[in-house]
């Protein structure tokens, strides 16, 4: 992939490392590890996408045409787990690995061996998650976890071996994420260039710092929850069984104490990235740097105390409903700070619309829809209609596809020339953007109306009044899925060759990462840069 053979760096001659497979297995270089994270993420993105296209094909028409409901249930749950844990989170970690040392003037991550281990835990975890599909082909077990990604007890207590595989997979993924977070926190707190105070730290790094803290706070709770599930399943405990004094809702509390911050874990790195991209393509400094830092922190803190809005129909007491409703609504305020700063950064700039800028604008608009529908979802009475329906499915795909994945694509197009030293094809990039945005809306906008009309989520077959919107959604999903091949093709072409990128790459950029060559030398910032106090 990325080999920095030619460089101006005087230390480049020392970039000796094993070649071939051993290079990637043993590497402790943040750029190599970042590349592996990103490659893994892209592969998993296509795997998770293929799963959901099978689901959408089944939902094209009423009736069961392609698969049994059992298999349908496996696909939807594993799709979510793959997309969240194996596609989005590794993509953000790949960005962190590649960019944080470059941005803060550090020679590498603080804990390079841990970094290597953090990555190499991912492939076995993904294998564990998907292996039950393959085992079932040989007559072992009844397939992958079929409970949806939420693993609600007692359904998950009742489930087959797929649940056990998912539990262990989540344990391993969790360990990997916690190691990555420790590494990022250690790097950001200890290895910034002299003169770079915390408040001067780039916003991408700030977004990641809050994400890493959230991961360390919440992942152990998820790990504990799924471990309790494991002991309920096999060792006779009754944490989630009323017959033994337990409570099924306890699992929902534990799961969503992790699950809600997880949304911000996925989004904060992207929110951190946006101001850099907007500033670059408006040729104007970031508006409200400090305000955005406090916005990130406020969202992180609020994100930890609103979890029960994910199960408001479970019969919570009235005071709890009111508390979770109003605290959830309060998140709109720091989020509005971010939107305000993004638009204020664009205001009176000199804009040009290269692919990263297009994705950033697409992100802001579509993520705006996610935020606004999230605001109405917070209302308990209306939530009783939206909850468990396709309205929610549409809402979180606006948050996690238009927010998360399109945010990642913004970053990939933005940094790809820096990573590879080549410009990607702007023509293909723009085509990819327009196809993605249009087909995304064709896929998910109808789902809002399906939810309002009363279609529950996670059903393999539906009543006849839902036919038209489902058909439109399926067609949209296939165009959306196939368009992503353009993305992969564009990346591949860019890695292989293309116009030479300058060190600065984009006309309007500023920051340490753009002072290095494109691609940066294998070992960068051997001599720490110094940040002038004036800036």
């Amino acid at each position, binding site marked *: 992939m990325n080999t920095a053979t030619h460089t101006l760096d005087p230390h480049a001659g020392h970039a000796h490392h094993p070649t071939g497979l051993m290079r990637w297995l043993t590497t402790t270089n943040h750029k190599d590890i970042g590349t592996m994270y990103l490659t893994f993420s892209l592969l998993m993105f296509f795997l998770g996408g293929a799963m959901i296209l099978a689901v959408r094909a089944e939902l094209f*028409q009423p009736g069961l045409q392609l698969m049994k409901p*059992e298999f349908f249930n496996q696909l939807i749950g594993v799709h979510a787990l793959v997309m969240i844990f194996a596609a989005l989170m590794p993509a953000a970690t790949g960005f962190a690995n590649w960019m944080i040392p470059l941005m803060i003037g550090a020679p590498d991550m603080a804990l390079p061996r841990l970094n290597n281990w953090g990555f190499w835990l991912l492939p076995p975890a993904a294998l564990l998650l998907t292996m039950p599909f393959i085992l079932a082909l040989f007559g072992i077990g009844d397939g992958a976890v079929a409970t949806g990604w939420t693993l609600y007890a007692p359904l998950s207590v*009742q489930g087959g071996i797929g649940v056990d595989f998912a539990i262990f997979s989540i344990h391993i993924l969790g360990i990997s994420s916690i190691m990555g977070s420790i590494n990022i926190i250690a790097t950001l707190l200890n290895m910034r260039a002299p003169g770079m105070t915390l408040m001067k730290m780039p916003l991408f790094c700030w977004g990641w710092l809050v994400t890493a803290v959230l991961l360390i706070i919440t992942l152990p709770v998820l790990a504990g929850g799924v471990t309790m599930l494991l002991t309920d399943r096999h060792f006779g405990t009754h944490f989630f069984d009323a017959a033994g004094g337990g409570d099924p809702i306890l699992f929902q509390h534990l799961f969503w104490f992790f699950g809600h911050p997880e949304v911000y874990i996925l989004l904060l790195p992207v929110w951190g990235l946006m101001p850099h991209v907007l500033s670059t393509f408006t040729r104007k400094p970031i508006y409200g740097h400090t305000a955005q830092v406090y916005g990130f922190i406020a969202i992180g803190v609020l994100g930890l105390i609103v979890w029960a809005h994910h199960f408001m129909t479970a019969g919570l007491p009235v005071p709890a409903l*009111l508390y979770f409703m109003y605290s959830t609504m309060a998140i709109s305020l720091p989020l509005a700070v971010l939107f305000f700063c993004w638009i204020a950064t*664009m205001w009176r700039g000199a*804009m040009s619309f290269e692919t990263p800028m297009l994705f950033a604008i697409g992100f802001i608009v579509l993520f705006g829809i996610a935020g606004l529908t999230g605001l109405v979802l917070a209302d308990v*009475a209306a939530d*009783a209609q939206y909850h468990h329906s396709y309205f929610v499915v549409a809402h979180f795909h606006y948050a996690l596809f238009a927010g998360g994945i399109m945010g990642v694509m913004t970053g990939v197009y933005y940094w790809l020339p820096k990573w590879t030293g080549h410009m990607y094809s702007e023509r293909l990039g723009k085509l990819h953007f327009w196809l993605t945005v249009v087909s995304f809306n064709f896929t998910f906008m109808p789902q809002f109306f399906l939810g309002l009309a*009363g279609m*529950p989520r996670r059903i393999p077959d539906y009543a006849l009044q839902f036919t038209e919107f489902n058909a439109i959604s399926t067609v949209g999903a296939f165009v959306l899925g196939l368009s992503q091949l353009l993305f992969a093709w564009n990346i591949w072409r860019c890695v292989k060759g293309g116009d030479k990128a300058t060190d600065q790459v984009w006309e309007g950029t500023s920051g340490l990462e753009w002072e290095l060559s494109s691609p940066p030398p294998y070992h960068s910032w051997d001599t720490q840069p110094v940040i002038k106090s004036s800036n």
Partner: protein
Amino acid sequence: MTRLNPRPHGRFFAGLSLLLAAGAARADYTWNFPTPVTPIARDTLNIHNEFMVIITVLFVVVFSIMVYSMVKHRKSSGVEPATFTGPTGAFQWFWVLVPFGILLFIDFVLMGIPAFHAVIEMEDTRTKADMVLKVTGLQWKWQYEYPDSGIKFISTMSTPREQIEGKEAKGENYLLEVDNEVVLPVGKKVRVLLTSTDVIHTWWVPQFGVKRDAIPGFLRETWVRIEEPGVYRGQCAELCGKDHGFMPVVVRAVPEAEYAAWVDKKKTEMAAAAAGSDRAWTKDELMAAGKAGYEKNCAACHQAEGQGIPPAFPALAGSKIVTGPLLSPEGKLIPDSHVDRVLNGKTGTAMQAFKATLSDADLAAIITYERNAFGNNKGDMIQPAQIKALR
């Protein structure tokens, strides 16, 4: 009424042509909640409509500003980029803080106050409740109980498998039809108590504006006061296993007199069923009733020919448990025997304790049928009276 549309389908490109004809939207397109028929549903619809207006205005205003900027502040039109990085001076601070003041007002006054009242009303299940309906979720059907009149029955989806598999044209109420509808009187406040015997289910009727989880081992509650007679259809809304998509809720709301007549009729039916457990049945009777009962209650998992879907749902054909001894020589229950499994279920699996939901006659018939069908040919039988003694 639910808005359902019988339409010919099955052609693969139907959806594609629809996509092209999307402009000429069909009359049955639903863009909002279905017509509300309870006070809660009406409140919810009003709140939802108000909120949609608010967020649409927010969306349009915010992104108009952005689009204006994208048009005006382009490099290609030769503008010099500004260099400000935050508000400077009192005037700019004012313009920065105004949107947040507006948002605060929208969140906690414009949206927050109606939302507060709606929650309080929705959760007030007890004030002036006229009657109670107890709903129990089971994989994959609903049991309804009327504590006032002692009525109790199971409601299962009645859409034939052939329609689902595309071998027959789909009916008007495809997937949203049941064998036994819940009947409720119009204009009465019905307190709905919910629980489950296995996993979490969610009872949802969109036109009632009510959705509440049924949680095993706990009681949850909600309420409805249906204002219009009619048939209202909904579905289970919480993923509850393989047939989650096939456990509809159908409520028939009728005027009070009609409701009273229905209660009397149901009571007579139940008395007849109870009498069934006291008389001796012939084997042919049991086999016939057992086949019907099996297909309704057991075939979803164990399949029509008893072949099951191993390993989750074991086969009954040739099963060691089914072909084992019926009862102990003293006529007592043998632990983990066929009768024990059917009556008491198996914890940690989808096999439920059917003695909670089926009559003595149904249980005796199903057990007898399972022991003599699918090539099991045990030749023995069990009487409803024996089941009654084992309870």
